[in-house]
């Protein structure tokens, strides 16, 4: 589903190497943690997967397509198959929970009937069925991230990418969010999580890819954070 071959990413005029010859293969339905300290290259990798950035060298295949060579007009269709979850939630704060989730479907051209049917369903999945009409600003951090999750799964993507999804949350709430991601994964969606959260990684015992200074320094099934750090 995601395959990196001799992947390099340089920022600026090649002075700063963000990814240094990274190779890996992620299969459909996997749950992956990308771990490493700040600047290790986790976020860069996620940005390459959604083609927010283009690799400097090497091949990155997502859904069997080399995203580096994907023409600009095809990007929306790649991204419709990937649900994004962010540390800072990136929600439209002046709108309601329902609107934020429906928005993701509207932009992809979903019909009104489909939106009316699907939004309550995903809100139910993340436990926000009673908050549909609430404004984002009236929600707690954990609830906001649930909205982010609901939005990410609204279009039934084949893959979820979460960049530090628990970074702004207290430990209890963080665990709730991770449990939600796990249940989404159990329904067949591939989940990629970039995180600093040692406790979560150790607790979930999923495949862990360790990044350090742009290099992939470890790849373990049922890995734990402390194996490298």
């Amino acid at each position, binding site marked *: 589903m995601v395959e990196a071959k001799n992947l390099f990413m340089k920022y600026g005029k090649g002075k700063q190497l963000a990814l240094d010859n990274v190779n890996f293969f992620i299969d459909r339905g996997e749950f992956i943690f990308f771990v490493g300290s700040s600047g290790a290259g986790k976020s860069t990798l996620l940005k390459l997967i*959604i083609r*927010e950035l283009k690799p400097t060298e090497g091949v990155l295949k997502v859904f069997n397509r080399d995203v580096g060579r994907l023409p600009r*007009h095809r990007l*929306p*269709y*790649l*991204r*419709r198959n990937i649900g*994004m979850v962010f540390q800072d939630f*990136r*929600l*439209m704060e002046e709108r309601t929970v329902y609107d934020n989730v429906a*928005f*993701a*479907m*509207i*932009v*992809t*051209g*979903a*019909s*009104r009937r489909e*939106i009316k049917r699907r939004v309550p369903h995903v809100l139910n999945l993340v436990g926000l069925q009673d908050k549909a009409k609430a404004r984002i600003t009236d929600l707690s951090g954990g609830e906001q991230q649930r909205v982010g999750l609901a*939005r990410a799964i609204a*279009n039934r993507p084949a893959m979820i990418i979460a960049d530090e999804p628990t970074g702004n949350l207290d430990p209890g709430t963080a665990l709730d969010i991770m449990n939600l991601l796990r249940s989404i994964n159990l329904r067949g969606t591939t989940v990629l999580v970039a995180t600093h959260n040692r406790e979560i990684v150790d607790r979930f015992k999923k495949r862990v890819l360790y990044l350090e200074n742009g290099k992939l320094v470890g790849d373990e099934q049922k890995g734990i954070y402390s194996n490298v750090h």
Partner: protein
Amino acid sequence: MFISGFIYILGETLKGLYRNRWMCITSTGVVMVTLLMLGLFMVVNLNVRHITETVKEQVEMVVYIDEETDRATIEELGQKILGHREVDRVEYVSSEEHMGRLQQQLGGMLEGYDSALDNPLLASFEVRTEDPEAVVRLADEFETYPGVSAVFYGQGYVENLFEVTRVIQVIGLALMAGLAITAVFLISHTIKLTVMMRKREITIMKYVGATNWFIRWPFLLEGLMMGLVGAALPLGILYYLYATSVEWVTANELMFINLLPLQAVMAELVAYLIPLGTGLGILGSMLSMGRFLRV
């Protein structure tokens, strides 16, 4: 695109206009002033053109024939002038006919004068050209033809008329171009503000897979609406002003001011100002969006 998308785009357009209402009013105002001035200029220009065309149509050249010229040469000369590709029509006026016209013009003043015995007037060809502006050039050419004594076309007066029309047109075009650029600049500035206010939303849209066109539409419509309103109001004002002018001219019996009819002028104004207003609006919004879409 489904109705949900259309409703969303329309909603966003109206919200954008409302949120930035003061800037929108300013930009629309500038478009209005631009198009109003442009419209006023067009009205003046159309009428000046109409009047000058009428005058130009009356521009005629008279080719006087040498007294000594024999009939065959005259006929040949007539054929030669008529055969010229820029000549529309030619009429031969004999010296007797000239005298007749003169006598008619002067009324009884030439009574008793025997023109058959002593007629100083030369026979001539009255020439009408396809393009009135060609008379100056053609006059020079015809003067070299055998049998031609002199060519008259209102020298001096005609050149001035053509020069004035050209200057009016050049100044007008420069003025219009300047105003149009100002309008595009202001619209693009206003829309840039909306785009910046909604930068976060645009980024989210890109992440969830919105196409660039889906993101562009509300901004394009915003620009289009500003342009459309900016064109519609001047049209109303111009309609009122022109109708009043036509009425005034008719009421005061100033029939020598040969104004174009109201419908003809309005048709021309609508045909130019509406596409121009919407065009300016769309151009303004296109210019403001480019770099914000590269996420």
